[in-house]
């Protein structure tokens, strides 16, 4: 898990430098600071389980096993990217590893997880689907509709709310008419827990129990992870216009990576072993950036491919 968390951190740090160096990647919503959530949750999943993501999805992708080389290529708009360069940061998808898509329309990924869980039920598998959403998304009606559907159908869905305290520049205490998003689980006869989202083991434990419940036919659960977004909403956002410096400092004190590293060392791991993991991640990213930069741009003909799903029997597919 530490390695995965480090990989997310390394990825976002690289992207940040690249973006600040002026590499155009469109809007990028850095996951930095929330690594323990994605990694802790996905550690509880099998590779054939599904996740539906948010606009802030890089961490979810890495945690579910999407290849960072393909991610980088996607962000460079290259044809070797996860989405052939057609989607970019806000649409990274890799169904082969159960990653159903970064989704920048707030809340709209949650019913996709419900549908995936329904698919598992109908096809008779024991797969589980996770729906990530932010505390800001908790105000979107579709999230409630998704929870109600999952609950009445007792589907294996784990709703994971990443409560980082802000939706753009809007504080959660202003936008949410409840103290904890987890309190809303009761409105759907779901179990709801709130955990320290900076403690990857706490997240894992809560997710693991929720996944078990889903797999064993006990229906959906809601896990709220209290976390913090270390950078701006996306590049160029000045967080100090809506967050106090003290609050940011305190939050950075609870860096999930450093906390976990300390814990590993306390439990007897060698600093060297841990450093090796970090080094490995740096190499991975060096390779990924090199791969992305060396990859070819999509050709002009790609503008009009994939508009329709290829469909031999349907004339339109040729359009």
């Amino acid at each position: 898990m530490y390695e995965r968390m480090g990989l997310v951190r390394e990825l976002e740090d690289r992207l940040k430098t690249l973006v600040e160096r002026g590499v155009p990647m469109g809007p990028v919503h850095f996951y930095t600071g929330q690594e323990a959530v994605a990694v802790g949750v996905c550690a509880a999943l099998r590779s054939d389980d599904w996740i539906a993501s948010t606009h802030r999805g890089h961490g979810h992708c890495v945690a579910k096993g999407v290849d960072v080389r393909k991610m980088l290529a996607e962000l460079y708009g290259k044809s070797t990217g996860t989405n052939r360069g057609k989607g970019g940061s806000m649409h990274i998808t890799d169904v082969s590893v159960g990653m159903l898509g970064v989704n920048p329309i707030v809340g709209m990924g949650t019913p996709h997880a419900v549908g995936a869980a329904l698919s598992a039920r109908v096809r008779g598998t024991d797969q589980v689907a996770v729906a990530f959403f932010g505390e800001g998304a908790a105000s979107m009606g579709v999230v409630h509709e998704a929870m109600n559907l999952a609950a009445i159908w007792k589907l294996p869905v784990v709703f994971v709310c990443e409560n980082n305290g802000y939706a753009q520049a809007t504080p959660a205490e202003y936008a949410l008419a409840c103290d904890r998003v987890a309190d809303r689980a009761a409105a759907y006869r779901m179990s709801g827990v709130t955990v320290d989202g900076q403690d990857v083991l706490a997240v894992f434990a809560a997710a693991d129990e929720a996944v078990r419940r889903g797999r064993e036919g006990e229906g959906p659960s809601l896990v709220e992870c209290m976390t913090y977004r270390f950078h701006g909403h996306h590049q160029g956002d000045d967080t100090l216009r809506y967050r106090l410096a003290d609050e940011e400092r305190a939050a950075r004190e609870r860096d999930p990576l450093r906390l976990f590293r300390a814990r590993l060392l306390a439990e007897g791991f060698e600093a060297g072993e841990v450093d090796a993991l970090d080094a490995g991640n740096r190499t991975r990213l060096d390779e990924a950036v090199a791969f992305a930069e060396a990859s070819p741009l999509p050709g002009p003909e790609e503008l009009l491919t994939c508009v329709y799903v290829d469909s031999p029997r349907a004339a339109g597919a040729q359009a």
Partner: protein
Amino acid sequence: MTVAEVATRELTFSQAINDALRLAMRRDPSVLVMGEDVAGAAGRAHLGLADAWGGPLRATRGLIGEFGPGRVLDTPISEMGFVGAAVGAAMTGLRPVVEIMFVDLIGCCYDQVVNQAAKMSYMMGGQLKLPLVIRTAYGTHGFKRSYGGGAAAQHSQTLYAVLAHVPGLKVVVPSTAYNAKGLMLAAIEDDGPVVVMEHKFLGTAAKGAVPEGEYTVPIGKAEVVRRGSDVTLAGIGRMTHVCLEAAEKLAAEGTEAEVVDLLTLAPLDEATVLESVARTHRLVVVDEDTPTASMARDVAARVADKGFDWLDAPIKTVTAADCPVPFAAVLENLYAPDADRVIAAVEELF
């Protein structure tokens, strides 16, 4: 295959849809039907109550009896949520046929239809199939009443223009029991999202011979349903019948109209329309939707570009009035195109 080869029987449009769904569900266990009261009395089989509605037009009645509640899902009133769930199911191996009771409700799930379903193949670089069918009822009554009223502004709309506008969605509008079944089977076979628009009035009023067994009517192909040399009337759904009615009356006056049933709005079969106009040199497009940014004007504009040299007269569009659908029957009677308005438009071309 042709209709002649196999046994046929008289079915209504809605029965033909039902037949298509049943055949597809029998052949393919991944096909499921979901929507509000597609069965009805959900969860009450133990009380001897089941299948209370079978959908607003009864097109799904009987399916739960054969396929059970696992594949015929009644949904709570939450279009965004359950259409989104259908999208998620289609991403992960099922072929859902989801019903939005009336197209007027598209505003409650528009994002899932036009931002999610329509764009996924493209946004994701073609890495997944999205075999999703969205069924929805549209249109005004189609019969005149002297007083009282109809379903008014929020339960009588056509609106397919706001679906056809968005790249990635296929939109089909059957006009007969025969092509309703064939287009529905084609839509279910299609590996991408297809919207099937079912006219409220045709659902029960359009009866016709329907072959047993499976057959498809190709998506993306228009059909010339009446030959004529003087003018082309292009119709959509119920308007095709209005065009045919107008054509008969015009024939009596010595004008031979060719009638093209568009059948698919996206992707539109431009070629068939252009070929017809090349023969007739005149075009009237008849559309039950409101005029601004409508399919009627879309078809007219394509011909004004690619068929200009064949035209001997202006292109006319006959559409719904440019207002919400009024309740009062005396006003609703004036709202949608009818044969007389089509004839009046044709007469302006000579």
